[in-house]
Structure formats: structure tokens, C-alpha cells
């Protein structure tokens, strides 16, 4: 005797199987870091914020990963999601991208008209409203274009494609830049010559207390 399987059950099983099969390729790189670790907790208002303090925020992201459109990382000095496909904002990997990193290190508000400072927990998954290009053009109340020759630590150099923050000046005229460089690079400090490149402009976060 044969027993017919009900259509809804067949469709259910098919959908699960199809979804899992389609996701099979993605599964190889989906570490689902953001799903496992990240949160959407509210940031903490900061009444006194300094370049030194933002440096410390940035340093906790060193050696962590890069996620295009991302903004969540832990502080274990390991990229938890290496080798994700590039140019994909849905890979749920660890780390920020360049503009998300700058937003979080500069402790900005999601409201672009607000210049106030907010301490975002590193596990708060937030990218912020700015792209590298919008930083370049000084979009938003906290951001301003600034002459490149006058930039100091924790100011930024931005192009239409990328932004990095100045960590230190070097004696040879280059800069140490702390940046989320790309999937293969993650977040770290590198020596760069963005200051002299005509593709880059200077950007300053406004409102530092020191």
C-alpha cells in the first residue's frame, strides 16, 4: 500500500533542501560572525572625547577582519571570517569597512545633523551613514574638509573609494595610517602616502575636547 505525502509537507521539505543547497556555497564562507556575536545595543553618550580616546577605540580593532558594509568586531586579534567574497555586504563577517571603521572610531551619531559623540561598543553592528566619498566631501555635521598639510593624528585622508585615519606622521614625510583596508588586509596600521596623493583629501572630525 502506498501512502501519499501531503503537498504542504513536500513543499516544506523541498524548500528546506533547496535553501540549504543554494546556501551550500555560501556556507563555506558564512562564519555568521555578526549573527553569533553582534548586537544592536544603544551607544553611550560621551560628553568628553579625545583623539587619544579614539586611538584606543581604533587599536582594539587591529588584526580584526574586514567586512564591506560592516561594523562589528571583537578584540581577539584574529580575523574570524577570512576569505569572504569581496564586494558583498551580506557575508556577515567580522570587522568594519573603511568608512564604518571611521564612523565608529570617530564616535559619530547616526543622525548626520548631530555633532555629538557616542561610544559604540565594538560588538555593536553599525556602519553609520557615511561612505568614503561622503567623508571626503565633508558630509555631516561632525565632519569637515581640511587642508591636507595641516592634518594631525586622528584626522583622516579620504578618496572616493577609501578612507584611513592618521595614526602618526613619519620622519620621511609619509604617514602611519590606521584603516580597514580590504578583505585580504583587515584592520591594521600601515605606512601610506595618501597625504601627497591628489586622489585624497583631508577630513577632520569636529568637536574634539583634546
Amino acid at each position, binding site marked *: 500500500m502506498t501512502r501519499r505525502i*501531503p*503537498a*504542504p509537507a*513536500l*513543499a*516544506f*521539505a*523541498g*524548500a*528546506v533542501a533547496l*535553501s*540549504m543547497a543554494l546556501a551550500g556555497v555560501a556556507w563555506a564562507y558564512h562564519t*555568521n560572525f*555578526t*549573527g553569533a*556575536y553582534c*548586537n544592536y*545595543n544603544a551607544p553611550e553618550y560621551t560628553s*568628553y*572625547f*579625545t583623539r587619544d*580616546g579614539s586611538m*584606543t577605540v581604533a*587599536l*582594539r580593532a587591529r588584526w580584526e577582519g574586514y567586512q564591506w558594509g560592516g561594523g562589528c568586531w*571583537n*578584540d*581577539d*586579534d584574529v580575523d574570524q571570517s577570512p576569505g569572504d567574497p569581496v*564586494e558583498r555586504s551580506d557575508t556577515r563577517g567580522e570587522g568594519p569597512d573603511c568608512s564604518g571603521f571611521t564612523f565608529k572610531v570617530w564616535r559619530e551619531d547616526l543622525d548626520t545633523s548631530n555633532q555629538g559623540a557616542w561610544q559604540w561598543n565594538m*560588538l555593536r553592528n553599525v556602519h553609520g551613514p557615511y561612505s568614503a566619498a561622503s567623508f571626503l566631501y565633508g558630509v555631516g555635521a561632525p565632519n569637515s574638509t581640511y587642508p*591636507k*598639510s595641516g592634518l594631525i*593624528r586622528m584626522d583622516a585622508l579620504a*578618496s572616493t*573609494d*577609501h578612507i584611513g585615519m592618521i*595614526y*602618526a*606622521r*613619519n*620622519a*620621511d*614625510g*609619509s604617514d*602611519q595610517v590606521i584603516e580597514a*583596508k*580590504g578583505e*585580504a*588586509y583587515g584592520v591594521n*596600521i*600601515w*605606512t*601610506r*602616502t595618501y*597625504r*601627497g*596623493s*591628489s586622489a585624497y583629501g*583631508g577630513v577632520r572630525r569636529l568637536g574634539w575636547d583634546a
Partner: protein
Amino acid sequence: METLRPSPPARRWLRLPAAGAAGAVVGLAAAAVLLLGPASGAVGDPPVPPALDPARIIDATHVPPVLTLPGEPLTLRYDVYCPPPADSSRDECDAAGTVYVRAGDAGPFSALPLNLDRRAGEGRWAARVPPDIARSDDGVSYYAVLRNRTAGTEVTLPAGGAAAPQRAYAAAGMIPVELGGHAFGRTRAATARVFSAVWGDGPADAGLEGGRETEPVGPGSFVVGADGAVTVLDQVHHRALVQAAGAPAVHDVPLDINGTLADLAGGGSGPLWVLETAGADAPMLKEFRRDGSAQGEVPLGTRTAAQLRIGPAGPIVKEYPSEQWVPAVEDGAALGLRAQRRGAEPLRAVSASRQVAVVRAGDEVRVAIVGPGGVERAWRVLSTTPLAEVQLAEPYADGVLLVVRTYTDTRAEFEVVQLGARGPVASFALASDDWAETMPLSRFRLSGSSLYQLGSTPSGVHVDRFDLEVAS
């Protein structure tokens, strides 16, 4: 009027998909839960990640003065970064530091406390060197120890401490060179294009990293052999492209590298050296035979490495924040981290007995040839247009060939200045040619009496040769 209804069989076929669709929706939802995990997009307490103790973080930066004028006051400035105390309402770490200074390069160091200069934008921890030390004809040597007073962690800068201190050389009689204001748009044309490749993935194409995620990154570096052969590091394709002098086409040499921005040195009849600056194992120096087979690798105990050059005893690497040249291999033997730190030198050795000193301060570049007896010859290059990085400073003829970037907020070119015993011998400007990113300080090489530039456009990468008018 009767409403038209499907016939019973048709209604049955509609019922089945409706039920199936419901099942499919539930199935898709179940798959989503399986794939994404219950925490995806959820508000709440996530599992605790394996974070490290933030109190471990301490880092310091310092711009060494390198070359001082006679009588010039000498203040050593540092920035130090560590987390603020947990119970503090302040944003900065509770830091302190001491700089140890002495005249010349021998004898005991004097300890100077670093004081916080709250008005300074950079170099907030400062110590003024006493005039009797600062005015020494032999310059000063020094190192600093910076501390996080809350956690008790500390960092020594340079890492070698008293065994390999930083130096500031006194340079009497610097030859002034006034560049004035830079006139953009008057650049020199190349003598010859000695290498070119289009962007692509073909056998002779150059790899380009880029897209929406990042800016264009092209070949990181290049070298020019004594015979004129040009070797370009095509790191995206994990290989080097070699254009032998007079050869009709390039040939490639596969290299086991990680594909990120890297520097290149050596070549010719010797091995190729690659400095990997990004990735889990970086910074790392790798050695390859001429056929590309791996010969060895040397982990580098530096925070940031940016330049690879060949010194008198082997490859040396410019590292930050110490701003010293670290030996990685000496006479064929790889050095361990301790030996690297202790062997670090503040200046780049260009022969067994001579070094080149270079520092950009504001719109001024100071350059010197330093020998066993101290500064042999020095120049002070002044510009009213801002100067960025010094790309090249190599001994040439009776002086130094200097390549420095000059820029405004919208334009940039390279200024090439041949510095001679009596002053500038020749100077000319070169286009930036920097559409794609390279290693930061590896756009130029000097070989014989020709200067070579690694350049790029939206269509490809090239190396141009500029013959210098005064032979070495």
C-alpha cells in the same frame, strides 16, 4: 449575476499550490533559522566573544628629529596610547614615560621625565634635551620607555632600547637649497618606457586589486638590475614579471606570496626578496631563487614594516614606530627577533661605512651623508609648496639624488633634485602617475645614471626611465 468560479478540478489544483506555498514559506523560514542562527538580527545578549584584555594595549609614536642645526633646541616628543582606567571619567590613558639621552653614541644615558603638554596636538609627551647634550657635535642618542600606569604595561621605543637607540645628528654647514613655489604642469617626459603591462589576467598582464570595496591597488614594487632588466612584483597574480633588457616580451616568475601589497628587493644574479606587509603572518620577509622557488622566510618582530632594501650585509627593513632599519638576514643567516632589535640602525646603510639620513619637517627636507666620523655633507631643501613623502634619497655623484612629492589639496607631482657638493646640480618635476596604489615608498629606483619610476594609468602599469644629465 453568477460569479464565475473555476471548475472543481481546477479548484483542486489551486488548493494544492496554496497548501504547498504555505509549506514552502514555513520551509524557507526554517532554513533561514538553520542558516542564520537564532541571533541573526536579534536584539539581546549575544554569546561572550573571546576578547583579549584591553589593558594589554600600549603603543607609542615618535617623529625622530634625525638631523639638527647647530644650536637648535631639541625637544623629543611622543604620543602614547592605552585604555583609560576603568573608573576614570577621562578619555585618555594614565601614561608616563622617561626618555634616556646621552651626547654622541657612547657613555651613560641621562633620564629625563616626559611631561604631558596638553596644548600640543601631537607629541603630547615631551622632554627638552638639556643644551649641553643637545649641542654636542656628535649629536645625541636616546630611547624612551612609555608606561600605562594603571595596568603596568610599558613599551620601549626603539624596541632595542639602550642597545640600539635612536640618533639625532648635528649637521653643521647644511647646504641650503631653495625650491621656491612648485610650478605644476611642467613635468619631464621619460627617456624611455622600459616596461608596460595592461591590467588583466593574461600571461603578461598585471593584476589589479580593486572594485567597489577598495581603491585600485596595482603591482607593489619593482627593481632594476645592473643590466637594465626590470622586475615588477605582480602580487595579485602571485608572481614577478621580468622584462630583460632587449627581450621581446616579459616572462613571469611564480612566487608563493599572499597577494597583498608587498615590497621587492634583490634580483639580478641574486635572490628575490619580498616583504609581506599584510596578512596573518605579516610582516614577513620571503626569499626566492631566480626561478621563483622558495628559499626561506624570516618573521619580522616589527609593528609596521614599509620598505625593503638591500644593505651591505643583506636585506634591511624600515620599521615603525621605531623608524629604524632592521636587519633581517646577515651574511646569509636569518636573524631572530632579539638580534633584529639589537641590530636596528636609525639610518639606512648604503655601504659598509656610509649611511643616508633624511627627514622631512614641515616644508623642508634635510638630507645628509653620514660616515664613521659623523655627518660628511648635508643639505637643507626648502619649499613654499607643501612637501609630502621622500620617495628616494640615494648617493649619486658627489651628493645625493632626492625625490620628494610636492602637493596641494588637488594636485601632486614629484620633485627630483640632484644635490651636489656645492648645492643643487639639477632638478626637474615628474608626474605623479599614481592611479593605482603601490607600496608607499617604492615608486622610484636609481640604477646607474638613470632614475626609474613605477607608474600607472586606468589602462595599465609601466616603468619609465629618466636618464640623469650628470653621470655618477
